């Protein structure tokens, strides 16, 4: 590890981190995935160190921090972290684990503080992560240097249009570069005007049985399930009670597939609109065309889905942003925020909040369909024979191209293209020693 910590005579044996060659578990060219990637404990542990540790991971929204000491606690992979504003109002992130016996030094979900004090023995750290108080300090040897025992800091934290990301990688590809063309699609949600976005309400958190990748890949690549899985919800929301009109159900569109594992899909139509009536009526589509261009207003601005690899996803139509926290191979925690344009007046924000609550959220009529699918897939996948039968990701195979209108490589709306690149990126990281393995 390049994160400098005193190690004394400690040496970690290599057997603690065995490496599985996963090259044979993903055939992204043929469109096949081995189900062991969803169920195996060793693969999961390898994901934590080779997929999560080196990647840019979503931490929080900038609107959650206004003054020094405001904090939010979350996870990077399974690592607990505190995100806070230091005394110079710089966003910092620290491993939420005391350097003494390892308990969390911040046990609240969010709030404001002056110090992070461990409730076990009272070691206390300031907003810069420095160890500032050790009860019974006189009992430690001369060699004990508090300067060596501050909170372990996430070495790189950056933000893109209000979204804060961090990575443990000490020398990462810069955030903006790692997003690549994905930023063009993200802007359609985050950059409606100069004022940016704010968070409304708190963070919804719920637990689902299901591997985290099932959710992440769906948001990257799956419009296919919409009319089937969400049939009842779509019927309920339609004026006739029979579902949307044929031209809407069978709308075509594009799906962006990034070589970095990101993905976004959206119907394409000149009259794409926001679903919440109040939001639709408030929206100045002409101004958005001016700012973002026709291709974005007629595409990823409204309806659609997206994942920033590995585990951050969003839905532009209702302002839902979420992270799929891995909790073992069989379980995830979903943490979901609602964001709105800061320029929206209160009644428009409220309309968007309520629309999101009804559709996507722990009680949302669409969200529940999705959670049921992921849990269903996971529930049976540990069967020996079941687990050995590969899954099909062949839709749209060979259809990827530069369409001249949307950046990067795109496929059809109904396609597994971004799923194939998602797993290709996963395979690439899983087979590449991370920075912390160098020299071993």
């Amino acid at each position, binding site marked *: 590890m390049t994160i400098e910590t005193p190690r004394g005579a400690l040496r970690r044996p290599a057997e603690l981190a065995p490496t599985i060659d996963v090259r044979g578990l993903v055939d992204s060219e043929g469109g096949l995935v081995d189900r062991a990637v969803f169920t195996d404990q060793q693969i999961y542990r390898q994901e934590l160190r080779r997929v999560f540790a080196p990647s840019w991971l979503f931490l929080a929204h900038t609107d959650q921090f206004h003054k020094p000491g405001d904090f939010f606690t979350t996870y990077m992979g399974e690592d607990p972290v505190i995100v806070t504003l230091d005394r110079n109002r710089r966003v910092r992130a620290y491993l939420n684990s005391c350097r003494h016996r390892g308990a969390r030094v911040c046990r609240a979900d969010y709030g404001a503080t002056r*110090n992070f*004090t461990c409730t076990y023995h009272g070691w206390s750290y300031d907003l810069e992560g420095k160890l*500032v*108080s050790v009860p019974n300090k006189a009992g430690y040897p001369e060699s004990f240097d508090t300067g060596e025992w501050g909170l372990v800091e996430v070495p790189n934290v950056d933000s893109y249009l209000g979204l804060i990301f961090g990575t443990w990688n000490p020398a990462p590809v810069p955030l903006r570069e790692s997003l690549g063309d994905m930023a063009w699609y993200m802007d359609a949600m985050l950059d409606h005007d100069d004022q940016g976005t704010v968070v409304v309400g708190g963070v919804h958190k719920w637990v689902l049985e299901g591997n985290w990748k099932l959710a992440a890949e769906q948001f990257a690549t799956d419009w296919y399930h919409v009319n089937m899985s969400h049939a009842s919800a779509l019927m309920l929301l339609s004026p006739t009670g029979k579902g949307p009109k044929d031209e809407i159900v069978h709308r075509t569109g594009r799906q962006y597939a990034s070589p970095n594992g990101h993905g976004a899909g959206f119907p394409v139509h000149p009259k794409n609109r926001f679903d919440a009536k109040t939001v639709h009526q408030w929206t100045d589509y002409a101004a958005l065309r001016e700012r973002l261009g026709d291709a974005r207003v007629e595409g990823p601005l409204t309806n659609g889905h997206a994942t920033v690899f590995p585990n951050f996803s969003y839905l532009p139509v209702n302002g839902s942003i979420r992270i799929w926290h891995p909790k073992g191979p069989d379980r995830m925690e979903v943490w979901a925020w609602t964001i709105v344009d800061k320029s929206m007046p209160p009644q428009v924000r409220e309309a968007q909040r309520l629309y999101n609550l009804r559709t996507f959220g722990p009680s949302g009529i669409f969200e529940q369909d999705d959670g049921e699918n992921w849990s269903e897939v996971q529930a049976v996948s540990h069967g020996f024979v079941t687990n050995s039968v590969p899954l099909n990701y062949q839709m749209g195979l060979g259809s990827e191209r530069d369409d001249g209108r949307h950046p990067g490589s795109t496929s059809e709306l109904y396609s597994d293209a971004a799923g194939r690149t998602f797993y290709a990126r996963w395979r690439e990281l899983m087979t590449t020693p991370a920075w912390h393995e160098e020299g071993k």
Partner: protein
Amino acid sequence: MTDGIRVAALDDITEGEGIAIAKAITGTDDDIALLRDTDGSVWALDDTCTHEDASLADGWVEDGYVECPLHSSKFCLKNGEVQGLPATRSTCPHRVEVRDGEVYLFPNQAP
């Protein structure tokens, strides 16, 4: 010293928070924490927590008490009496007066 030392304007101290006055100004052994309660009243205590090296002026002030920002020991704003572990010793209170929006401190005088 009968008029006290003018140490701050009342508006300098946010309700629920405190500021530290250096011992060079107060002439005391320790800095003095000026602490403004949630009802707007102002109180003064020795600044250093009796448990560990921490500034009570950085603490949380609410309903007649200040809580140390490091280990949550609580002290009465009026008389400095310790309210519970991990601190075991009370701290020293000092007299404060507010006149015309100015805060006057009377170091080592009982409130």
